[in-house]
């Protein structure tokens, strides 16, 4: 599924398929597969997915089952948790990184306690992130919402489609 660049979604997105975000998302993303945040996208959310590739802006914690990759255009503030994290030259990042236990070596490095980043299913923590504009927005009759594939269950507080 692709969230187009003119779309803003506020709320909790859960899905079994790959998701590409070209627009804006505020809230929580819980995905069984892969997330791709495109270059112009702005995401303020806690994210959980299989693989996450970031080329846009993310403010929030990211937890991936396999890999998080920040491409040269990525701008991320938040904590990253995944067995593999790749940060390319050009990416901008600020936050913690947890790849799990470091391999034992001769020097016996003490291992920092695993940081568990589990997104809180309740939306209480991110209420302040939701823009008041979005919550006011209701579906008007003539409004053509993008079809939501059956693989995605979206609990949406408001979907705003900005006309360019």
């Amino acid at each position, binding site marked *: 599924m692709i969230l187009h660049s003119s779309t803003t979604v506020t709320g909790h997105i859960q899905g079994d398929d790959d998701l590409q975000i070209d627009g804006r998302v505020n809230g929580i993303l819980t995905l069984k597969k892969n997330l791709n945040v495109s270059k112009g996208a*702005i995401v*303020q959310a806690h994210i959980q997915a299989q693989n996450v590739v970031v080329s846009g*802006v993310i*403010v929030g914690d990211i937890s991936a089952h396999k890999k998080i990759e920040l491409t040269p255009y990525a*701008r*991320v*503030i938040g904590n990253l948790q995944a067995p*593999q*994290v*790749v*940060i*390319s*030259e*050009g*990416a*901008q*990042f*600020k*936050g*913690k*990184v*947890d*790849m*799990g236990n*470091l*391999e034992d*070596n001769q*020097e016996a*490095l*003490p*291992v*920092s306690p695993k940081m568990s980043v589990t997104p809180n299913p309740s939306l209480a923590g991110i209420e*302040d*992130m939701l823009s008041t504009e979005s919550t006011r927005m209701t579906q008007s009759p003539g409004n053509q919402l993008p079809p939501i594939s059956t693989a995605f269950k979206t609990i949406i507080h408001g979907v705003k489609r900005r006309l360019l």
Partner: protein
Amino acid sequence: MMKQGCKIARGTAVRGNVTGPGNLVLDGQVVGTIALGGDLHIAKRGTLLGNSQGNEMQIDGVVEGNAVAHNSITLGRHARVQGKLKAKSVILNPGAQFSGEIEMDVILPEELLETLNDKEDSNA
């Protein structure tokens, strides 16, 4: 003019502080701090337990400690690093193992700056 370099070979261990205006290649071990005007290269079998400071850093070995670079810090595929990394650019190559914190300047779009300022005010 080439800056004078320093090389700590595989069989050498230093317990203490190392300071110098030039570059350093660490193939051995340092328990202590490294402060350089030049570049730091921690080779694949090199180990640093302690903080470091330099111009550019290439880490291919083991580091436990904080690292501050004037320009960039790059972790190669054999790197095993734990600590806080601060630089203009921090690069984690595939295979690099890292646990800790990274701080780079992050330029956010204007529309987010307001949101973040509100968050910080409410957290304060």
